[in-house]
């Protein structure tokens, strides 16, 4: 699914990062538990999380995840933005809940990791 579609469907905004209009992710994973994220084998995924602290960015960095969607109106901190920019991670924010966000994107065809 195109990042531009994800933004539109979840009424999200981009906090930092750059991507083309054709950039896509294959699958998504929703979790506030970073150890769960660190068990994933998939490539090219979107991390949907309500965890608004630097560990979500560090986890994405270690797991080679380049797109993070923060849910339930959580705001990225300056430290998070700094780390995301340093590691070429695109950070987005949606006002929707984790459940609603996941439901909308799943219904629109974004595949789960498992």
């Amino acid at each position, binding site marked *: 699914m195109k990042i531009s579609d994800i933004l539109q469907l979840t009424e999200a905004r981009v906090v930092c990062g750059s991507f083309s209009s054709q950039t896509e992710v294959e699958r998504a994973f929703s979790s*506030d*538990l*970073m*150890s*769960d994220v*660190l*068990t994933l084998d998939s490539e090219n995924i979107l991390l949907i*999380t309500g*965890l608004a*602290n*630097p*560990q*979500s960015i*560090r*986890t994405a*960095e*270690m*797991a*080679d995840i380049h797109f993070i969607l923060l849910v339930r109106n959580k705001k990225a901190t300056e*430290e998070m933005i700094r780390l995301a920019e340093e*590691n070429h991670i695109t950070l987005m924010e949606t006002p929707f809940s984790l459940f609603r966000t996941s439901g909308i994107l799943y219904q629109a065809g974004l595949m789960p990791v498992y």
Partner: protein
Amino acid sequence: MVIEQTYFIRGGDFSHAGDASSKVKKLLKQLGVDARKIKNIVIALYEAEVNIVAHAWEGMIRISIEADRISCTLEDKGPGIEDIGQAMVEGYSTASKEVREMGFGAGMGLSNIKRNTDVLEITSEVGVGTKVYMVNYF
């Protein structure tokens, strides 16, 4: 050629948890190590680094990179682990609420480390600290 690095880790300093693992990742990338291998190494190292921040008072990470492997030794001064066998069980955790708020503390750290390393040795003395030695072959 052997490359050696040492990083100091402060217990409880969650805002910097992962800094050392991040530096190691960048170093391995520069050395041209396979991306898949890098991911295994840094996931294990990051979980182990978070463990020091979450449980210990302070710690050191020493890494040594040789032609065919990376060895990481993480030594901390802290409460130690009473029963390593139990700590290895997925879901068992002694983490604080603060650690859970950071997105960890669900008892998956050590099993994540084991899954991502070729050699893993953990020794610990209650009231003194814990030593984690891990090796990944390239």
